[in-house]
């Protein structure tokens, strides 16, 4: 297959879902079965993606394929000369891997949805939305420039808005959609600022050109500090999209959308876009930016993990776990474990999608019951779902033989090594702690849902195993959660092709003195460097590789112990009930509440933004179940108050001034009227006085 052909194939992969969207949207009302067309499209897309991935990874492993065209030609701009804005496609290894994941999960979700969404009155519209989502996501992956990333970034925002708010008649659903969009926009603002800095400095959006200029020593505002800032700003986009702390609040709410949607966008693809963005711009990130990213990732891994411990909504638990896992990836990138982070992105996509689809299967069976305290014992009724769910839970907990073990262990290993090289041990510590927590809450979820006795007999009686179209995706994903696809050695991921040949650490372009010591390259900066260097290890110094190797065994063992411990505790608590959970929670009530109420983010932000004025609302919010909305509400109510104030200001002051002028004119007129008494002699007195005054003036 030649390069142009690959480009065309990529274009096809990109545009087919759009076609599906348009056709399904406009013919949806006329043709009942148009969703089949969409289904066909997605299968075709997936086939294309597989082909593309196959060809690229096998024949063009070390070549990036780029194709671009001029979208806007500004002509010969004064001072800058000829200026274009180019759009283009970049096919490299991470792109095809990503695209494979995206289309695969998208396809599985499509299939899953056939049964799951049956009977919805906007059935066809639903598939149309899936189509546009796939299109936007593919766009992000394939672009070779920052502008297009931003464009598709926003489109992803739109499609998630549409999908989360799919059941828009439910206020909570439309609220969640809105919240997702707006919170994402907050992050996008930072990203936009980053893009503005990049464009202003380099007058191009194309990554390769930007990287080339940076490595040639051309920095934004000629300052390394601003390069760091730019990196952090662009990362802001990822904070929003990947639901990182402190913008993670939208993701749990987004569970209002249909469950397959959650599987698609909140587990595998959309949220992964943020991580993908960091991967894309990785070469320009300085050590400062990376540290910032690592901290954010760490916080995002830890905080939601603690929240997930106490949640009772099956999807919310998964949502928080998603944030936590994404935090892992981000942290991994921040500490330099580039390859493992991306690897975790892929493995997580599969097992998290599996978890969501499994939960969807459960919810479907339980007639849209999502509270795990009302489930139990489903193991018997839904053996397949249980089995797949179990595999996924093991994977996410990092138990050997699963894919999760491979990737997560890599990240832990990386953070461990990072600690040993830089002294920032905190990342490793938190990483391991979160591994423990993850294992615990996942098995808590599993046990409460599938083990024990049914707590809601009525619903239990009606529960049933899912049909083929729902079961098949579960099986496929469960299969993909096993180690074998990635490496022959279940304890060392680096023996598989995916980490040795496919995912390659990029060549950094940042100035040497802005890098971590262990990332200092031996190659002198200033030489023009391709995006994927010949030798992928060029990014790291020798002692990093050394540290990584040394960290491998301790990290693996420690994580195993911790994961086992977590599972064990979960069994002790919930399966064997050796410990009275209620008693325990009562004894650590404050901590429990902290977790149950999602860390009281609202209170914190209220204190920051609104201060004492919202004291009262803080008290009330204690009782408020929707306390999660903290951050958004805190800032939203401030905005709203501000907007009401400006509205008033506009009416009273600005408009008032105008009206006052009008009133004043009228008043002056009234005064003038007073002279017109109708008595002619009075007029003459006025005239006499006027003459006197005029005489005094002109004497």
């Amino acid at each position, binding site marked *: 297959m030649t390069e142009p052909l690959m480009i065309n194939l990529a274009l096809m992969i990109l545009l087919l879902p759009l076609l599906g969207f348009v056709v399904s949207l406009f013919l949806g*009302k006329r043709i009942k079965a148009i969703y089949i067309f969409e289904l066909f499209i997605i299968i075709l897309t997936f086939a294309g993606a597989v082909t593309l991935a196959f060809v690229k990874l096998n024949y063009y492993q070390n070549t990036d394929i780029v194709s671009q065209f001029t*979208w*806007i*030609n*500004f*002509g*010969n*701009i*004064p*001072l*800058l000369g000829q*200026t274009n804005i180019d759009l283009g496609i970049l096919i490299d290894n991470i792109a095809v891997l990503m695209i494979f994941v995206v289309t695969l999960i998208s396809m599985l979700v499509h299939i899953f949805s056939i049964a799951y969404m049956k009977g919805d009155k906007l059935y066809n519209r639903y598939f149309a939305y899936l189509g546009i989502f796939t299109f936007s996501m593919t766009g992000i992956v394939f672009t070779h420039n920052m*502008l297009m990333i*931003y*464009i*598709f970034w*926003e*489109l992803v925002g*739109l499609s998630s*808005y549409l999908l989360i*708010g799919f059941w*828009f*008649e*439910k*206020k909570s659903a*439309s*609220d969640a*959609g*809105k919240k997702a*969009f*707006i919170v994402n*926009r*907050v992050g996008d*603002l930072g990203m*936009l*600022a980053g893009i*503005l*800095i990049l*464009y*202003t400095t380099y007058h191009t959006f194309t990554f390769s050109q930007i990287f080339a200029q940076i490595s040639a020593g051309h920095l934004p505002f000629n300052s390394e500090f601003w390069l760091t800032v730019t990196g952090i700003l662009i990362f802001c986009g990822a904070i929003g999209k990947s639901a990182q702390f402190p913008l993670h609040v939208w993701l749990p709410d987004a569970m209002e959308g249909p469950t397959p949607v959650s599987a698609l966008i909140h587990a595998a693809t959309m949220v992964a876009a943020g991580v993908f963005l960091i991967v894309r711009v990785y070469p320009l990130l300085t050590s400062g930016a990376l540290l910032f990213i690592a901290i954010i990732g760490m916080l995002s891994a830890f905080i939601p993990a603690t929240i997930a411990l106490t949640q009772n909504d099956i999807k919310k638990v998964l949502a928080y776990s998603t944030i936590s896992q994404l935090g892992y990836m981000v942290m991994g990138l921040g500490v330099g474990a580039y390859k493992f982070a991306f690897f975790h992105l892929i493995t997580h996509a599969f097992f998290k999608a599996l978890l969501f689809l499994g939960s969807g299967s459960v919810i479907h069976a339980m007639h849209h019951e999502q509270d795990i305290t009302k489930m139990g014992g489903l193991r018997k009724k839904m053996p397949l779902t249980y089995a797949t769910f179990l595999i996924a839970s093991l994977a996410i907990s990092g138990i050997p033989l699963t894919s999760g073990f491979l990737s997560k262990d890599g990240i832990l290993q990386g953070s461990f090594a990072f600690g040993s090289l830089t002294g920032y041990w905190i990342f490793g510590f938190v990483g391991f702690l979160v591994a423990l927590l993850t294992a615990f809450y996942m098995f808590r979820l599993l046990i409460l849902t599938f083990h024990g006795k049914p707590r809601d007999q009525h619903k239990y009686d009606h529960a049933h195993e899912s049909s083929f179209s729902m079961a098949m995706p579960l099986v496929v994903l469960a299969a993909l959660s096993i180690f074998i696809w990635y490496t022959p050695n279940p304890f060392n991921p680096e023996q598989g092709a995916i980490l040795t040949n496919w995912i390659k650490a990029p060549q950094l372009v940042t100035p040497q003195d802005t890098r971590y010591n262990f990332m200092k390259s031996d190659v002198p900066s200033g030489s023009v460097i391709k995006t994927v260097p010949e030798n992928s290890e060029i990014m790291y110094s020798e002692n990093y590789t050394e540290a990584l190797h040394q960290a491998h065994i301790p990290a693996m063992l420690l994580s195993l112990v911790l994961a086992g411990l977590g599972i064990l505790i979960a069994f002790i608590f919930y399966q064997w009930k050796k410990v009275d959970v209620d008693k325990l929670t009562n004894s650590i009530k404050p901590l429990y509440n902290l977790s149950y109420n999602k860390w009281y983010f609202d209170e914190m932000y209220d204190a920051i933004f609104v201060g004492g004025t919202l004291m009262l609302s803080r008290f009330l919010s204690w009782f408020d179940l929707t306390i999660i909305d903290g951050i958004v509400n805190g800032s*939203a109510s401030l*905005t*709203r108050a*501000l*907007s*009401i104030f*400006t*509205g*008033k200001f*506009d009416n009273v002051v*600005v*408009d008032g001034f*105008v009206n006052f002028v*009008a009133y004043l004119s009228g008043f002056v007129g009234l005064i003038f009227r007073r002279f017109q008494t109708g008595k002619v002699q009075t007029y003459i007195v006025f005239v006499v006085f006027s003459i006197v005054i005029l005489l005094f003036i002109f004497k």
Partner: protein
Amino acid sequence: MTYFPILSFITFLPILGMIFILFIPKNQATMIKSVTLLITSAQVIAALFILHYYNYSLGGINDPNSFQFMEKFRWIDISGFSWIGRIKIDYFLGIDGISVPLVLLTAIITFIATLSSWTIDKQVKGYFALFLLLDTGMMGVFVALDFFLFYIFWELMLLPMYFLIGIWGGKRREYAAIKFFLYTLFGSIFILLVMIGLYFSTSETLADGTKVFTFNMLAMMNPHNYNQFGILSPLNPNNLRFIAYIFLFIGFAIKIPMFPFHTWLPDAHVEAPTAISVILAGVLLKMGTYGILRVCFPIFPEITRQLVWYIALFGMINIIYGALCAMAQKDFKKLIAYSSISHMGFVLLGMASLNSLGISGAVFQMFNHGTITAMLFLIVGVIYDRAHTREIDAFGGLMTQMPVYGGFVTLAFFAAIGLPGLSGFVSESFIFLGSFGFGLIRVLTIVSTLGILLGAGYMLWTLQRVFLGTLKEKWSSLKDLTFREYAMFIPLSLIIIFLGVYPSAMLNLMNTSVNSMVKFMADAKVMYSSLSGF
């Protein structure tokens, strides 16, 4: 083609239509409407002709030889005033890349507004006569190159607008109409004053070598045409150019409308009938920014350079302030009106950047705002026609009842938010790229980006309150769109999507002109500073 006076045709066609309508008996409502529709569609066709024959490589701005479709002949020529020279006013029309998009926009929006006016049943004859008169005024402003002619057209649309709001408007229409009228007249007297000042400061050399004072805007852009003692002459050390610039700017700013001169707009919009709101937002507001771009910038480049920071500042205030105000509104239409203020702020910001990206973005934003806001007002109109209320909280769940309508609404709302793939995104991005590229106003740009966040906030909130959620019982009989309404929405939607995907279609039109403008503004710095030491 070169000999056919297409600009005069497109400008005065509506007047002919008006005269024709005046002779139709007033009970022939349908005929009147059809004639208007015919006229406006002829205008659209003429605009497309212009587009087709437009030469993309000519810049315009200050070069009289690169304007297109020029028509120039002596209109008023009074010789013999020995002490003030000859009075000469040209009938001078021409377009360049900055006016072409707006001519196109005017033609399209008027056409759509005609369709939207179909529901008018009160004094139909008067309505459409005034409507066409307004049309001429708007079109004229965008094609006139003689300041005097420009001013005539500028004022020409005041009165029809007053009546259109005042007679066919809502409850507080009289207040709104008079407010609009007084405000804009207040603005235009400043323009008049500066126009006269410029007249006495510039002279043009005629073919026979005599020098005469001139209203020719292009002549005013050349500092060599100024005479030594004119009060607005850069050669005069005691000139009043700074004050004149402020005056002129205020005159145009009222039309934009720029904070704090904006308070006429919400009133006018809320009270005006739908079609007039469409015109008002779609075209009229552009006259302000167009005026600044066409008059303030090239005639006073050196002052512009001094004041860009303030222009950008006001742009920023407009963006944020308009958005915040919009958020607080309970009336659907008022919300859209405030969103207009916010969006016009982007135009100001873009112009202040003084570079190609920013100015392209600004001009493009003018066009896009024209189409998008027009669509938003049509949306309000549709719902108001059916429900007779615009209270946002009175609605809910309309998406279920009117899915097609809801689809258009979603499209328009997302276009207003600046979603990629739709035209608003491209222009807003370029505005940000442009203004961020100008170091002086970088911080303002960053603050302005908050506008897109707030925009998403109020738009989505509105979308949710009106269209999402559960349908209220009393609205369960609302009908979805009619054929006529399709005819209004579809062209606008297509334009919005088309330009979102392929913005070059519009950007190529103006590139050369925008670049000439930027070059001119850059050169002017040197040129003017060499004149009299500032």
